[in-house]
């Protein structure tokens, strides 16, 4: 199927039901091809996205897209056909609006094209971001996979940890920015030789085997905490749904309805987690009026504490600070002027450059503490945790106030309501 065929296919869909039928049939065909090891067309991919504007003040997503030259043709109340007028009038996929805050983009385009398109969408709009699933979140989702799947099913887990701040390699960081979304395990011929810890590997085995070994392996080798991709096996056939750390989900099953159900399930957990994070962590001065003498200022909120499993070396700490706050384009997408308070301690009263919201940080060789003023999307915290696990310390422990983040994720995954909002 050519790009033009995909575009025509998307254009022809006129109802929600037709989209489901089309993607369901398409997924079944791809599964047959996968069985024959002859994939002729790209797989169905979904991208979980978040509107990071202040709750209640969020623009309609169609307005956000239209600023970027992307037209949303309404199919039904919550479903849009996405036409990118910048790319020769090409239809890119479907956008399902779950709530004013969350939506999913479904596409048939090949991974490299779709990944780049979604990445640029997020980069060019301060109002949009990926749904960030940290290693800590994946570890809890893995528990759910154990509960949901038979022990003899196969699971795929990808671990990614790269201690990029262990060497002062500007080239490396810039190149990686390009590769961020599409995570391939294949290495080409042109691989830079650098000496630092970099773990990137894929584990495919029966659930029962992984269950027995994973926690022991994680205790012995910290990078195994940095799960960045996890497959939910399909309950209605072979294969499953591959969830990536940046909210991408590839359908490697023959069933689109089941694919969508899994996305909704994870989305609801994320939604619950986000509500809990923001409720606890947002700092604000709350004005309380009493009978006399007037308004009282009450400070509410809780700090976010990330405690490293191993202290960073002086060189790594220095390079982390230099690389983050000395470069316009840095991995953490932060701006700030570090106030040096010691050889391994700085304070930054800075800005999250993706959402353009203030964030105050204490960074040391042993921890990171963040103060997040109200209005800053909880998404900032999840992205921070993802990046710390991926690039600084895979086994870092995270607390929102005095509550462990892992416990918060567990509670979120148990708190999914039978009759959710979407």
């Amino acid at each position, binding site marked *: 199927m050519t790009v033009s065929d995909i575009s025509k296919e998307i254009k022809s869909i006129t109802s929600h039901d037709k989209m489901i039928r089309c993607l369901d049939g398409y997924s079944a065909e791809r599964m047959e091809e996968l069985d024959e090891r002859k994939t002729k067309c790209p797989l169905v991919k979904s991208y979980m996205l978040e509107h990071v504007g202040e709750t209640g003040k969020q623009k309609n997503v169609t307005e956000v897209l239209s*600023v970027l030259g992307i037209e949303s043709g309404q199919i039904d109340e919550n479903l849009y056909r996405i036409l990118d007028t910048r790319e020769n009038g090409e239809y890119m996929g479907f956008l399902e609006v779950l709530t004013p805050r969350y939506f999913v983009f479904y596409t048939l385009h090949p991974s490299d094209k779709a990944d780049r398109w979604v990445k640029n969408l997020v980069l060019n709009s*301060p109002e949009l971001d990926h749904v960030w699933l940290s290693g800590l979140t994946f570890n809890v989702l893995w528990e759910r996979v154990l509960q949901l799947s038979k022990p003899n099913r196969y699971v795929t887990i990808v671990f990614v940890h790269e201690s990029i701040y262990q060497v002062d390699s500007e080239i490396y960081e810039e190149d990686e920015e390009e590769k961020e979304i599409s995570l391939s395990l294949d290495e080409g011929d042109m691989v830079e030789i650098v000496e630092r810890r970099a773990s990137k590997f894929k584990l495919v085995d029966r659930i029962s085997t992984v269950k027995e070994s994973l926690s022991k392996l994680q205790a012995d080798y910290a990078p195994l905490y940095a799960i960045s991709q996890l497959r939910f096996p399909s309950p209605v056939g072979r294969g499953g749904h591959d969830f990536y750390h940046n909210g991408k989900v590839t359908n490697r099953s023959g069933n689109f309805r089941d694919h969508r159900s899994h996305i909704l399930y994870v989305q609801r957990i994320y939604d619950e987690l986000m509500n809990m994070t923001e409720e*606890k962590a947002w*700092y*604000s*001065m709350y*004005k*309380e009026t*009493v*009978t*006399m*003498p*007037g308004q*009282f*200022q*009450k*400070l*509410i909120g*809780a*700090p976010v*504490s990330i*405690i490293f499993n191993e202290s960073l070396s002086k060189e790594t700490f220095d390079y982390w600070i230099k690389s983050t706050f000395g470069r*316009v384009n840095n991995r953490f997408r932060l*701006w*700030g*002027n570090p*106030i040096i*308070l*010691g*050889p*391994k*301690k700085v*304070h*930054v*009263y*800075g*800005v*999250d*450059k993706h*959402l*353009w*919201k*203030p964030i*105050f*940080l*204490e960074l040391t060789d042993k*921890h990171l*503490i963040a*103060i997040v*003023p109200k209005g800053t999307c909880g998404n900032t915290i999840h992205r921070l945790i993802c990046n710390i696990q991926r690039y600084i310390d895979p086994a870092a422990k995270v*607390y929102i*106030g*005095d*509550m462990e983040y892992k416990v918060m994720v567990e509670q979120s995954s148990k708190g999914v309501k039978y009759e959710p909002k979407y």
Partner: protein
Amino acid sequence: MSRNINELCKDPLFQLNLAIWLAQPQIEHFHIHPLFYKSGLSIYSIGPLLALPPDIRLAVSEKLDCQEGARPDLVLETKATKKFCILECKTSSFGPASTKPASQARTLLLIAGPILSEVLGLGTRRQNEGILCYFSGSNQIKMMENTLGILAQEIDGIKLESGEYGCFGVKLEQSTILLEYSDRIKKFLNFIEDSPVKILTFEAETDPRPLYFIPYDPNIQQTKEEQELCRRILFERILSYIISKIGGVTIPSSIIFAIEEILNSATFGVYEVWEDNETKKHIRRLVREFLEDIRSRMDEELREHINYESKRGWTFNLKDTETYEEMLKQISKFKPETLDLSKELQPTLFDDIMEN
């Protein structure tokens, strides 16, 4: 790090921020040991203006040197026991004859007494119990407690009741900051741990201060070194606010920055509660000069897009993407540390004109 940590322990802004951190939900013995939080104390109010009820004002009139109202630095509450802790931070102790601080202390002692519930607007008298606590360097607390004892006796002498009182001493011991307090405080506030408590551990050559919730207070006396750092923190916070507002704007747009809005965002709203006096004018002047500094360091062409109007504040006109990107680039490069942070600001004849 050449900073004098003994001096830092006596700094009222450090003490205030430390007290706020002690009340934050955090895990134990990691960053700052949350002694207040673990004992059930939470922040009730920062810098509230508390007034004496009319009958008390009449009762003290010409008998006791009191203020009509006072603004303590912090009020903490324990929800379970309905108790309140009124906190005031001081560089040094004072005697009963010190006019202003003693007058403020008498007022706060009265407020901490049976009238507390009424003063806070929570109900009638004797529904809540209060304690007045001073934060100070540990070598100051003995004299401070003596003074408070004498002032409480003065209140008793005119047949009124004061609340409980005591002092927290902030002390440096090797690489640890300790908090000392009397048994009286421990009992009243239900602290589980005996004094002194290790509240903060830091590494050699490192400044132990936590992130500042309240970065600046023109009403307090600080060492020159402290004032410079706190001024820098204030400027960094203002800059982060300006960058975040400009960064998130839709092009084309005009953004207006009013001084009050900037200062409230940089102080978590505490600017609003400072008394409107010369010091508040001073901080407005400080911010105005800071924004002038930012503007003056921009390219001439960009400067034309920033206008000041006395009633509105600064307007940044971002007419196209090019202006937006260049504006953001140049503001992001601005370093408050390169400014003269110890500069004394003198009032000018044009201050009122600029503000009105």
